[in-house]
């Protein structure tokens, strides 16, 4: 039986070599089918992962409150009144269900150390912000309460700044110049890892809010308030109490529209996730079509060669082959071709995904399920269409197979 299988394998391999064109086209169909479906789904998964990473960098369950009306509503002519640090304290003290509240004053400027300089974003905020944004400290420490209260010129620096200004040097205790103030580095933030898409998350300098207000922006304005919501509370309810509080503090009468907006990262992450899911499904559908096209290609080749194969089967039967011996040969041939095409297709998909992922700035994620499904599907088509015409022929009287037109 084993010897028989080896003989058959040899026979099948010989037939594959003898009909190179037919074999090549069959394999090609499988390569296209497997290659495209696996590449597309892998890239789709990578995109989803990249989007998810960006979402998580916004911080989970965070409300971003900005002055001004929300998108979509026609903005009024007057400049919206900015927030102040008092608004931050009021929310912290009066709204139930908030874990932490932090102000954010944003500015940009050149950070300089010796001959090195780097253009970066400067955030004036508090330790709460560092926690809410899930930053971890790689070296050094966060601000002391004294530094926060007094608005000392101390700073935490992101990995990009550290790399560009300090290289391998220890930055703790060193001073850097930002605009025209000199500040001491007290902590280095751990890298958020490779960041995908626009905006490098590690390109930041964080300072106490008072320092930024006093020494950089020169006013008391807070450009954004970040609220971290207690997961035990419904985000909508927390938003409503914040809204009520802020309306009162900003003296908005009953008929007046909000002159600030609340942006819920939870909500946006859900929207983005469902969008990427749709995108992946779409890619999958396109890929499934190419899998189908590949399958039809295989089918065509097999059906076109049916006459030739039927005559071949007739000859084999006429010289004494049993129907099942002929069938086994055709089955082995189909399996060999399908596996060959499937493996090549998987290899090409792997190469293409590894190559394209960095171009799209998405991570490469190997998905065993889709690899297996695509391989099995194409292989099944190859085997089915190699096997069934052969089975029909092997059931004919030898003379009818020989006469097949």
């Amino acid at each position, binding site marked *: 039986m084993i010897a028989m299988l080896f003989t058959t394998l040899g026979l099948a391999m010989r037939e594959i070599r003898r009909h190179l064109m037919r074999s090549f086209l069959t394999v090609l169909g499988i390569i296209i089918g497997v290659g495209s479906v696996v590449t597309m789904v892998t890239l789709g998964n990578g995109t989803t992962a990249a989007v998810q990473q960006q979402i998580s960098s916004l911080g989970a369950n965070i409300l971003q409150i900005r002055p001004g009306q929300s998108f979509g509503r026609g903005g009024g002519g007057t400049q919206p009144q900015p927030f102040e640090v008092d608004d931050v304290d009021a929310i912290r003290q009066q709204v139930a269900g908030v874990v932490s509240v932090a102000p954010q004053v944003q500015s940009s400027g050149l950070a300089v150390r010796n001959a090195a300089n780097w253009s970066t974003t400067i955030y004036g905020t508090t330790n709460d912000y560092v926690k809410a944004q899930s930053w971890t400290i790689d070296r050094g420490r966060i601000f002391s309460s004294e530094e926060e209260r007094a608005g000392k010129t101390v700073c935490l620096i992101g990995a990009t700044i550290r790399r560009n200004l300090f290289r391998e040097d220890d930055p703790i205790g060193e001073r850097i110049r930002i605009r025209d103030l000199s500040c001491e580095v007290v902590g280095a933030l751990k890298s958020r890892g490779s960041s995908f898409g626009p905006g490098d998350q590690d390109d930041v300098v964080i300072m106490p809010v008072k320092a930024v207000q006093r020494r950089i922006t020169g006013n008391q304005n807070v450009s954004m308030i970040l609220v971290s919501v207690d997961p035990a509370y419904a985000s909508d309810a927390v938003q409503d109490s914040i809204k009520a509080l802020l309306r009162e503090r900003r003296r908005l009468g009953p008929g007046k529209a909000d002159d600030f907006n609340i942006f819920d990262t939870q909500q946006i992450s859900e929207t983005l996730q469902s969008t990427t899911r749709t995108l992946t499904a779409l890619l999958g559908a396109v890929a499934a079509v190419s899998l189908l096209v590949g399958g039809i290609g295989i089918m065509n080749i097999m059906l076109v060669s049916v006459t030739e194969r039927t005559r071949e089967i007739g000859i084999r039967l006429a*010289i*004494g082959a049993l129907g099942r011996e002929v069938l086994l040969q055709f089955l082995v041939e189909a399996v060999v071709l399908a596996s060959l095409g499937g493996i090549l297709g998987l290899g090409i998909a792997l190469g293409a995904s590894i190559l394209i992922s960095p171009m799209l700035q998405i991570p490469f994620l190997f998905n065993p399920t889709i690899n297996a499904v695509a391989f099995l599907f194409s292989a099944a088509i190859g085997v089915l269409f190699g096997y069934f015409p052969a089975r029909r022929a092997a059931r004919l009287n030898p003379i009818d197979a020989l006469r097949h037109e």
Partner: protein
Amino acid sequence: MTGPLISLRGITKTFGEGPTAFQALRGIDLDIRSGDFVAVMGPSGSGKSTMMNILGCLDVPTSGAYLFKGHHVEQLTRDERALLRRRYLGFVFQGYNLLARTSALENVELPLLYRGEAKKARQEAALAALRKVGLEEWADHTPAQLSGGQQQRVAIARAIVTEPEVLLADEPTGNLDTERSREIMQLLKRFNSDAGITILMVTHEEEMAAFARTTVKFRDGLVESVEDRKQPVPA
């Protein structure tokens, strides 16, 4: 051996069904002795090929009895018929029916492969068969690289490589010129007298039939006559 090697009794073959049905054989009675060389003649469409295919187990009769060495072939299963072909029968077609893109040697090896013989034994036997038909030097040529006469000799080598008891040849010289046809006839004649292979051969040409000992004439799906020749052409 007593009794004929092959006996046909009341063999009929009908193609198609209903109003378009056509009876190609209408009751054939025929005995073939072991070691005989039979020429089958008759007009085109008289049923010669139909009978040869039934004898070769490539087709089955509609009714009647086909006895091979006293066994009822018409009662065998598909696989049993295949094994009968494998063991006792060799078939040569008018159109050669060699596997394309396959060397002469591999074509001749094929029946041995299905007999489960080892590669070395296969190759030796196939080469020996090719030598017998004078094509040893052409062993690695494919059919496309061979002339019609050479292809038919490869087909004959393939048919005799298994040392069959019966060789069935349906117009083996039908596509060949007279010179090539004579070579083929001499080959067949030699296999008949030297190896004792029983041969049935369909031909339209008296000259080729003259090599045979017995001549069976067909007409309209029936055997018209069976004649023994006193002095067939020697090998």
